[in-house]
């Protein structure tokens, strides 16, 4: 049977992608960011997943205001890289896993999570920057990827509680898949940042680190946090952090298993306008 081996959490700042693509990773400003992912790249090589279930948000690229799905699962065989206005990032196309994606969709919809099924979707920096941070700059991505897009652009976004419950349903769906696949669930976005209005530039280091502590130790309680707390304390775009609760909900301990191992933790301010947070949690074998 398939199983969830680990979860990975990371910010997905577009400027990180631009720094990689333009060969600026050795500048002191960017070294402080990329240094936090050196461990993670080695870890990926030693723990290669068959499939990454990658939770991210689209930033007005695949979805305009014509259609705004709250939860959208990519069930296609492959996904092209979006042109966000600066030209597409020069990274490999994303190869999906249609069979597992369809299995997860069928399973969680029958558990009352009404996903939108998407068979054609360009993927933007929300998905490609985390892949670059963990996999470097390969000719082809080392694993299959199931894109899972969450609306965090138009308010109200799904609650943390709903995201945490959905993660649990995703774990059950993975574990009911016959093929012995190793699956990682990634939650991306955040941490504190605000990109709009006179309050732009807000960062809340204490709140972010408390969020990381609680995500590790008491995710069920953290999932009760109301939207207004994210907006007020972590900035209007800090609300992306609800997506991390999907990945956390997919870990074994939430279903009664042993606590995960914290393989890596990193925090740095700033990357462009944003606080960068990163965690790797492993399930026990």
């Amino acid at each position, binding site marked *: 049977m398939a199983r969830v081996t680990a979860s990975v959490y990371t910010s997905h700042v*577009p*400027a990180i992608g*631009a720094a990689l693509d333009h060969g600026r990773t050795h500048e002191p*400003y960017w070294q402080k960011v990329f240094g936090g992912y050196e461990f993670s790249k080695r870890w990926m090589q030693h723990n290669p997943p068959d499939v990454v279930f990658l939770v991210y948000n689209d*930033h*007005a*690229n695949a979805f*305009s*205001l*014509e259609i705004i799905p709250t939860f959208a699962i990519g069930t296609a065989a492959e996904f092209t890289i979006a*042109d*966000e*206005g*600066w030209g597409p990032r020069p990274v490999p196309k994303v190869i999906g896993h249609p069979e597992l994606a369809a299995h997860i969709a069928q399973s969680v919809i029958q558990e009352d999570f009404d996903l939108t099924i998407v068979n054609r979707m360009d993927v933007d920096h929300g998905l490609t920057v985390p892949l670059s941070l963990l996999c470097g700059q390969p000719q082809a991505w080392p694993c299959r990827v199931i894109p899972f897009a969450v609306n965090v*652009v*138009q*308010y*109200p976004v799904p609650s943390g509680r709903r995201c945490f419950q959905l993660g649990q349903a995703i774990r059950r769906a993975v574990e009911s898949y016959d093929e012995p696949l190793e699956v990682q669930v990634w939650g991306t976005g955040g941490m*504190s940042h*605000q*990109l*709009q*209005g*006179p*309050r*732009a*530039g*807000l*960062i*809340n*280091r*204490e*709140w972010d680190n408390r969020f990381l502590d609680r995500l590790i130790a008491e995710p069920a309680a953290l999932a009760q946090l109301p*939207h*207004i707390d994210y*907006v*007020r*304390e972590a900035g*209007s*775009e800090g609300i992306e952090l609800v997506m991390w609760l999907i990945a956390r909900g997919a870990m074994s301990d939430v279903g009664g298993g042993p606590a995960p191992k914290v393989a890596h933790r990193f925090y740095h*301010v*700033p990357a*462009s*306008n944003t*606080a960068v947070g990163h965690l790797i949690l492993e399930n026990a074998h």
Partner: protein
Amino acid sequence: MALDKPYQDVPGTTIFDAEQSRKGYWLNQFCMSLMKPENRARFKANERAYLDEWPMTEEQKQAVLARDLNRCIAAGGNIYFLAKIGATDGKSFQQMAGSMTGLTEDEYRKLMVSGGRPIEGNRYRHEWEKK
């Protein structure tokens, strides 16, 4: 019964909710059109003529022409959509965000490198009104 909108007392912040989205629909859809290189070229060649192809309000058009992102947001724009205008102009997200704060580009960059805008004094509108 009116919807509960507790986020309205966060200072310097406009939450892009259904009301803003309805108001800004054509402004944001105009921005989406700039994802295509041929549309970026047409917009740059004659901004006013390109804007006049869209059923936007005059205020929305003026805000775009002035590149006043705070005005665009007040008129229903969302920052991820407005970013397409910045991309067309060759601006980074940091330049766009900074332009809304009243700081110069250099001051804003320094603010971020020094750890960002602190949360103290920036949680509630009444904290800004005292200033």
